């Protein structure tokens, strides 16, 4: 809507060509200029100018709705993708929210990819079983996706449903996998994602993981690199949020963790749950700015060799709580031995 051509707004042709000579072609370019520049460029009088501004603003502004209509709309579509971990679903008021971006982060080996694969299987299930009955788009940047593991999860968890071979194959054919290993490829993939969503009819997108390509390519200690990195992440977040809301689907991202020291610049260690240095603490990677980008944040961590924990770090609907779970051959399971 921002890149809407001024001609399509219904402005007189001579005004449009006059503005085009000054390189003002879209609504966005019009609205980012100051009033003085615009007065000079359009040649309008000071009294007429507000009317012009209003006309263009009306063509760019979002739709006016109320919260009530929003709620009714939410109710009509399936508003959540249940994760099948009952306590987590309870806390999140249903599961992964449709129309918003959920981020899962945690140390390596904690089960992020397992969670992604399990949710991919869930999304392909019919609605009566709690799924979305739709294809899944899975963007893998680490090379951790394995079709065999996907089949194993499906068979062990929903053994009666996937008892016949045909259903298994159908499920795997509905998970569309894209392997992108550089930030440029990821950005290209996101730009065509809107079309892919329309053509495949997918209702669930997984990006595993956001951090790996970015951290390889951008060195966060160099200031210029940091700016580039923030820009890339910002664009990525904006795309994903737009897609989530436009199609009203849940989008799942995974992130890594990093260790921050108090008086030294950040360094990334791959193997730490209990930081040995006293003043250091573990936090999600990609910085504070990225932290604002996801709507819901879940953090995974190890409790002991068997149990792991999910913590709801940021959510518009849920309080900050912890849950235990285990990773088994059937995917992630609730830990019934206590939270």
């Amino acid at each position, binding site marked *: 809507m921002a890149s809407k051509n001024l001609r399509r707004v219904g402005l007189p042709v001579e005004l449009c060509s006059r503005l085009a000579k000054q390189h003002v072609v879209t609504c966005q370019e019009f609205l980012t200029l100051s009033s003085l520049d615009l007065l000079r460029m359009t040649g309008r009088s000071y009294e007429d100018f507000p009317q012009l501004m209003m006309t263009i603003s009306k063509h760019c502004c979002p739709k006016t709705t109320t919260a009530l209509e929003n709620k009714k709309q939410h109710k009509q579509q399936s508003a959540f993708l249940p994760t099948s971990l009952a306590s987590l679903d309870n806390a999140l008021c249903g599961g992964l929210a449709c129309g918003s971006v959920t981020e899962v*982060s945690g140390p390596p080996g904690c089960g992020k990819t397992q969670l992604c694969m399990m949710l991919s299987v869930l999304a392909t299930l019919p609605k009566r079983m709690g799924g979305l009955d739709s294809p899944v788009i899975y963007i893998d940047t680490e090379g951790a996706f394995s079709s065999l593991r996907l089949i194993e999860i499906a068979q062990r968890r929903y053994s009666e449903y996937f008892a016949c071979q045909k259903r298994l194959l159908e499920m795997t054919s509905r998970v569309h996998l894209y392997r992108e290993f550089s930030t440029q490829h990821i950005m290209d993939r996101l730009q065509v994602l809107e079309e892919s969503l329309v053509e495949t009819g997918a209702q669930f997108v997984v990006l595993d993981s956001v951090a790996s390509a970015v951290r390889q390519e951008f060195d966060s200690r160099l200031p210029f690199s940091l700016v580039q990195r923030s820009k890339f992440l910002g664009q990525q*977040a*904006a795309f994903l949020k737009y897609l989530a809301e436009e199609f009203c689907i849940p989008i799942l991202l995974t992130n890594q963790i990093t260790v921050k020291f108090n008086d030294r610049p950040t360094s990334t260690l791959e193997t730490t749950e209990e930081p040995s240095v006293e003043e250091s603490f573990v936090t999600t990677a990609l910085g*504070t700015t990225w932290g604002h980008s996801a709507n819901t944040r879940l953090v995974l961590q190890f409790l002991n060799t068997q149990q792991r924990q999910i913590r709801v770090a940021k959510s518009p609907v849920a309080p900050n709580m912890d849950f235990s779970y285990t990773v088994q051959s059937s995917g992630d399971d609730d830990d019934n031995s206590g939270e």
Partner: protein
Amino acid sequence: MPRQVGSLPLPPHQRARLQAAGFETTDELQGIGPCQLAEELAIPREEAMGILRMARGQEGPVNYPNALQLLVEEQAEDGLLPTFSSALDDLLGSGVELAVITELCGAPGVGKTQLCLQLAVDIQIPGCFGGLGGQAAYLDTEGSFMPERLQQMSEAVITHCSRLASTKQERDQQDALKTFTPDFILGNVFYFRCFDVTQLIAQSHLLPDFVDSHPKVRLVIIDSVASPFRHGVDDAALRTRLLISLAQRLAQLASTRRLAVVLTNQMTTRIHPNSTQSASLTPALGESWGHAATHRVILQWQGNRRFANLIKSPTRGEATVEFTVTSEGIRDVPTTPSLPATMPAIPTASMFLSSPTIPTSLPSTSTSSNLILKSPSALPSLHMTSASMPPSTSASPAVLGCTAAMLADAASSCINAMTAFRMATGEKMTTSSGSSPS
């Protein structure tokens, strides 16, 4: 239409001096200030001013608005916008202030959107309960708006108001409650989802007309101002210019139509290459944006507790209070917190122990919310202050969720001035509030 100077109804000596100085028509008196005219005609400045006014055709001296009129206007407001946490209300001075911009900054997950949702409900509290009975316009740029959560908060506020109505048994309160339902509350929150900078700017141009056509709108929330500007505008100079013009439009809107404008900002990490601290958290959008808001509050974590730190306000002193977010919305913590003496004014990265960090013990946030539900003393109660208030302040508007101590020390000076003025107009006032007799 220029008149002959001789035809103006002036005293003869002034007319004579004007003509002696060479002024023939009133056109020639344009563009001359009273000081210069006074010097040329050798008359006092006030007389010169009188001549100029007559030449322009103005009747008498212009009415200069003074602080007393402003005070009257403010006190005439018969309602407040509370946050339902008396600590936060106290911090901001009887709730969120109208006609100014309040900015909330904070790390992700600390509760900015929750506070915005709470305010969108609180603005609708009917006048008989001490609220403003207005509507809210919510401009969402991040997509964190959840109508289900708004419904939860509305139900809690309705329960609170019903409890009050049942104790007081007032007719108008009972009537108000009949229409005060969750659907009604949700229907009064106008929602605009702005995906990028252009939509946000466009909507800000259209807000004045929108507010004029919906005169009950008393609150405009933008959640958040930071995200579209940080990701959508690369050029820093352009970003600053757009932000400042947005801030001016909002300030004008707030002031002329007496709305409360609440903006949300993000935090960013500032690296200090040369000092002992390696990095600290600071509000995003730069230094010049810091001047845009009238009140600035930073919400921060400390461990698992949430604190609100007022860092900029022309009327309230800098302070930090604790609050919590429960299933009902924003509330006080059940016990009075003892603030750590070493809390620095600027949050450092080490203080930003937001929930993504991994504590060794499991936090018990769920139990604290149970405490709040069970203990009635923590519920903000309307009229609880009326018994303990001195009689001279009984004319003050009903205060929702504010403690007697807050009223006594912060607002009573204003209210005393008001009641004194109402009781004895024209008498000289001896208060230390912002009013000055004209």
